[in-house]
Structure formats: structure tokens, C-alpha cells
């Protein structure tokens, strides 16, 4: 360590110098945090709009609705996630995580919902992250969504899938609902093993409870369709598949 000044003035001024550096650092950092929070809020509100768009799906307009949803989703990425990437440029991603985590989680929710609806599969973390690569300056470390935000987003996804399943049953798409049921059960089952290992597991714990409620809501809806269908089968001797078709409201469309 450098020798300590024995006179009062210099020491005190070196302290002042140091503190003005700290001050500058804190100012810049806090300003950046504010900008990141704002970017995150924008991502949230626009991802929510994508989710609502997906819920506009019905038996006969799937392609059209999902196309728009996908378009909106890439707009969220190109416009708002890009701004987040830009703000975070060169900062430690983990340090500001709390500032952008809500937005990223909501984006994961929207992106995985779209993907499930278009292909019936789970959008992987790798896939979602590879889409973000082009947004970053190639010379810098790119922003990648971390496992935790991805999993937390996935946990919220179940709620949206539950809404979707109830809607699909109303539209007579029983098999679609059953597909959702299997998918959500699988996610729930996998997450029961991950939940206790999350960095802050208390948060995830309450999400798990909500998720189980969602799974059971879908199961109860499927049960209800099934017992009615079975009754009809036993009443009329018809094939089950045919009886399900009656549940649709196709005649009104």
C-alpha cells in the first residue's frame, strides 16, 4: 500500500477524490437502473398484449391469430428487448437482474405460449436465447435470459395455458385441451424437482401452488367433458369421438 500522507489536507482531499469517483459511479449506475426498469416495464406491457392476442384464438381462426401474435412477439423483441440489451450493454447482467427480471419473465411467458400454440412444443431456453443474439453488439457479451427467469416465466405460462384449455373445451376442441393437460402436467412434474433448487425458492414455492391449481382446473374440466361424453355413449351407443363433437359451438360460427 502506498505511504500514508502525514498531513491533514492531502489525505482529506484524496478521500474527497475517491468519494467523487464513488459518487459518479453511483449516479451512473442508478440512472442506468432506472432506464432498465423502464425498458422492463415496456417489455411487460407488450408481452401481455401478445398473450391476449393468443387468447383470441378459436377453432377457425388459428393461423391468422397466431401469425399476428408471432409478429407482435418479434416486434417486442426487436423493439423493447433490443432497448434493454442496449441499456445493459457492458453491465453485469446479474447485477441488474431484479430491474429487468419481471419484463423478461413476461416475455418468456408470451414466447413459450406462442410456440406451444403453433407447434405444440416447449420453446427451449437455447432457442429463445439464440433469437436474442442478433440484438447485441457482436463485440460485447450478448444478453442471454438466465435459467431462473426462464423457469419463473414458464411457471406463469401454466396459468395462461389453463385459460386456453378452458376456452378450447368451449370450442369443442377436447383433444387440444387434453394435449394442454398433458403438457402442463409434464411441466408441473418437472418443476416439482427444480423448484427447491432455485436461487430463491420461496418465490417459486407459491408459484408451484398456483400451478397445481391450474393443472387441477384443466383436469376437472376434462373430467366433466368425459363423464358427459360417457353418459351419451352409454345412452346412445355412439362412438365417443362423435359425441365429443357435439360439444362444439360450431353451429353458431
Amino acid at each position, binding site marked *: 500500500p502506498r505511504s500514508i500522507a502525514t498531513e491533514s489536507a492531502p489525505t482529506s482531499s484524496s478521500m474527497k477524490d475517491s468519494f467523487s469517483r464513488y459518487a459518479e459511479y453511483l449516479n451512473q449506475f442508478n440512472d442506468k437502473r432506472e432506464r432498465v426498469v423502464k425498458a422492463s416495464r415496456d417489455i411487460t406491457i407488450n408481452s*401481455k398484449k401478445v398473450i*391476449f392476442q393468443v387468447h*383470441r384464438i378459436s377453432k377457425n381462426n388459428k393461423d391468422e391469430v397466431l401469425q399476428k401474435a408471432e409478429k407482435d412477439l418479434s416486434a417486442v423483441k426487436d423493439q423493447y428487448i433490443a432497448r434493454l440489451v442496449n441499456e445493459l450493454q457492458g453491465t453485469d447482467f446479474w447485477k441488474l437482474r431484479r430491474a429487468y427480471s419481471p419484463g423478461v419473465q413476461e416475455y418468456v411467458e408470451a414466447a413459450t405460449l406462442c410456440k406451444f400454440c403453433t407447434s405444440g412444443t416447449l420453446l427451449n431456453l437455447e432457442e429463445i436465447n439464440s433469437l436474442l443474439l442478433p440484438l447485441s453488439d457482436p463485440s460485447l457479451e450478448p444478453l442471454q435470459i438466465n435459467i431462473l427467469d426462464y423457469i419463473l416465466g414458464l411457471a406463469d405460462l401454466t396459468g395462461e395455458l389453463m*385459460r386456453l384449455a*378452458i376456452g378450447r373445451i368451449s370450442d369443442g376442441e377436447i383433444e387440444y385441451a387434453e394435449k394442454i393437460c398433458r403438457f402442463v402436467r409434464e411441466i408441473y412434474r418437472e418443476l416439482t424437482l427444480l423448484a427447491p433448487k432455485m436461487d430463491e425458492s420461496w418465490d417459486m414455492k407459491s408459484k408451484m401452488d398456483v400451478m397445481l391449481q391450474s393443472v387441477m382446473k384443466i383436469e376437472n374440466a376434462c373430467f*366433466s367433458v368425459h363423464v*358427459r361424453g360417457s353418459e351419451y355413449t352409454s345412452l*346412445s351407443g355412439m362412438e365417443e369421438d362423435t359425441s365429443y363433437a*357435439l360439444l362444439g359451438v360450431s353451429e*353458431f360460427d
Partner: protein
Amino acid sequence: AAVEKQFDKFRFSLEESGNLRDRIKAVATEIDSTTRIMHSILLLVHQSRPIPEVLEKVNSHVDKLKQLFSKLAEIVGESPGQYYRYHGDWRSETQQVVSLLAFTHWLETGSLLIHTEMEQKLELNSEFCLDVEDYLTGICFMSNELPRYVVNQVTAGDYDCPRKVLKFLTDLHASFRMLNLRNDFLRKKFDGMKYDLRKVEEVYYDVKIRGLGSKGVAEGDQSVQES
């Protein structure tokens, strides 16, 4: 002394708005009483009382509601531009009113009473309007009554009811899906509508598989009352 004067003024102004609020609450309580009576009457439709009779009784209270909303508008009007300051004090009562009037209207006509019609029915104006979210919440409340209505109508032998309600509710649900809601009270209520729709479908299905639906009746959209 300047400070004292300022605070005296504040005290005066807060007392004044406190009084305003008390008067608003008194009217809101009256609205609540009136809707409770109307609701009591409307519940008779679940017991298969003739709908025209029920509607007549219910409608006889609408004038009272108009008066109360006019009173409310007058009070709130004393303090211009502060509608939303006091909004919370009549909010849930208004949602009940919306729910009742929309249900009554649907029983009469089979169609939805839209926002502007509702404002007209209550004789509201641009000064004292009907908040859109309150309107939408009230409509969700109305939807909650429909499954019970259908169940009881079928029990009473009206097998055509499920089809009509299902059509109406399907359209309503599709319309609601056009909205981008926040994760709030209204979204929760809208989620509930999905279950109402499901329940009505099940009843429709029950009726249909037993061949109980009126097949001879033309597919026109007759008002509920006519049936």
C-alpha cells in the same frame, strides 16, 4: 401564522370533501338498497315465475335508480373535475346496477345493453359518465347469473333456453377477448366468464343428447321473453 392559515384552509377543504364523501356514500347506500330489492325480484326467474311479470316489477325501480344517479351527479358536480377522486365510493354499487340492468335487458330482448345505452338508461351524461371498466365488470357479474338461470329453466322444462344463452354468452365472450386487460380485478372476473360459458355448454349438451331441444322452432334469435 401563514402556516396556520394554510393548514386552516386545508382543514376546511378536507372537511368539505369529507362531507361530500359522506353524502356520496349515503346515496351509494340507497343505490345498494334499491339494487338489493331489484335483485330479490330478479331471483324469482330462477323459480320459474313468468318473466314479463318479473320484468315489470324490476323495471318499476329503474326510475328510482335514475333519481339516485342524478343526485350523485349533482353532488359530485359540486366539485368539478374530481369524479375520479370519489369514484371508489360508488364503484361496486354501480357495477351491481350494470349487472342488473344488463340482465333485465337481456331477458327482455336477448341482446346486450351496450355502454352508451346503459348511460342513456340511467340518464347519465358526459359530466357524470359510466366508467368503462365498471361497465365491463358489471357485464361479467351478469354472466355469472346465466348458468344458474339455464339450470333452473331446464329444470322447469324450458329446453330451448340453453341454446339461446349459449349463443349470447359465446358472442359476449368473443367480444371480451378483444380487450387487452391488465392483471387486475376485471381480468379475474373475465376468467370467471369462461367457466360460466363452460357450464352453459354442458347444460346445452345435456339437453341436446337427450333430444330435448326444440327442433321445430326456427333458428331466429327470438328474445328470451318471447319463448
